[in-house]
């Protein structure tokens, strides 16, 4: 894809704003990334977005590195650097100042209120991520069975996620998906 100045500007602007709205960690912001990158900008197709999410899961590191992958897809190495910097910059500066002041805030009522208020929202956002990724993936009944089996295994047992990914990838490689 050809990238010009306005592409970098859109990447930087969008992810800088998203940085401050990504509550509950990287996965909560996935639906918004999909809305903007696929539906608004048409930078990626649904299938490519699902692939990008899968690749980010397979790469070690914080979940948020998916944004570097999106940036790379849109505008190469510079796109990846611009995107990840925009996604981390504002929230890191915010964390820095809160961290400097945290001793003063600790134990205050709002800490308790805020954490209780954000948990149900984070829950809704995580469920949204699952729904959005599920709609991008080309589901047949075996893919649906993988989702169900992984959900049950992860809920009832302590299994490393790489095992689930390895089995799922193997089934895909065998042409079952």
């Amino acid at each position, binding site marked *: 894809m050809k990238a010009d100045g306005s592409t970098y500007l859109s990447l930087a602007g969008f992810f800088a704003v998203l940085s401050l709205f990504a*509550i*509950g960690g*990287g996965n909560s912001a996935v*639906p918004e990334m999909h809305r903007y990158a696929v*539906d608004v900008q048409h930078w990626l197709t649904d*299938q490519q977005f*699902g*692939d990008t*999410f899968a690749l980010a*899961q397979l*790469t*070690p*590191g914080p979940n*948020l590195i998916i944004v*570097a992958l999106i940036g*790379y*897809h849109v505008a190469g*190495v510079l796109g990846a650097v611009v995107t990840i910097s925009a996604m*981390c910059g504002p*929230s*890191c500066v*915010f*964390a*820095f100042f809160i*961290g400097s002041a*945290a*001793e003063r805030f*600790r134990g205050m009522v709002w800490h308790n*209120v805020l*954490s209780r*208020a954000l948990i*149900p*929202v984070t*829950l*809704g*956002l995580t469920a*949204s991520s*699952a*729904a959005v*990724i599920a709609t991008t*993936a*080309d589901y047949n009944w075996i893919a649906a069975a*993988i*989702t169900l089996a*992984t*959900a*049950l295994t*992860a*809920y009832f047992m302590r299994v490393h*996620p*790489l095992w*689930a*990914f390895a089995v*799922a*990838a*193997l089934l*895909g*490689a065998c*042409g*079952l998906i």
Partner: protein
Amino acid sequence: MTSPPIPGSTATPAANPSPSPAAAPQPVRPTLAELFIAFATISLSGFGGVLAWSRRMMVEERKWLTPEQFNETYALCAFLPGGNIINFSVIFGLRIRGAAGSAVAVAGLMGPPVLLVMFVGAIYAHYGDVPALRRMLTGVAAAAVGLLVATVAKMAQPLFRSSTITAPLISLATFISIGIVHWPLPLVLMVIVPVSIAVAWARL
């Protein structure tokens, strides 16, 4: 010199050590290079979230934080915007070595995986259309959806066990507006978060 105060240390600055027995061995103060290597290692050993790895290294192996300090710092980071572990690196680095510590910790955490992910992106750009690769990635995405579903189920348990209906309603409203209707996140949060805060405040 004693260690500087670390977030979540049970009460007070180092000048007035906490009486808690858990805090008795003073946490070790790492250098900038050690910070960078620690966060790079955490980052590269963590697939699908790095919390478990950061806890193991910070608390069990290097003893830079007591379990209580780790929990409190992490609780603070969990409700700041942005990646939880990224915020953790910012605040931990800050407490240990000031602004330079923050920068080094974030660089250690993000630098290696970003380089790695660009390499992955380059491979995908070349081979992304190969049907077998596509099917493998679809399988991985399907498994990742399963992991998210399990996370949701675990988070929902305590929420739905309480007698009030408001928290589940807030979750449901968030899910419908973001996951189904696909409204923009900032707009939805600017409505739902104040409502959720008001509800939490009223139930104090």
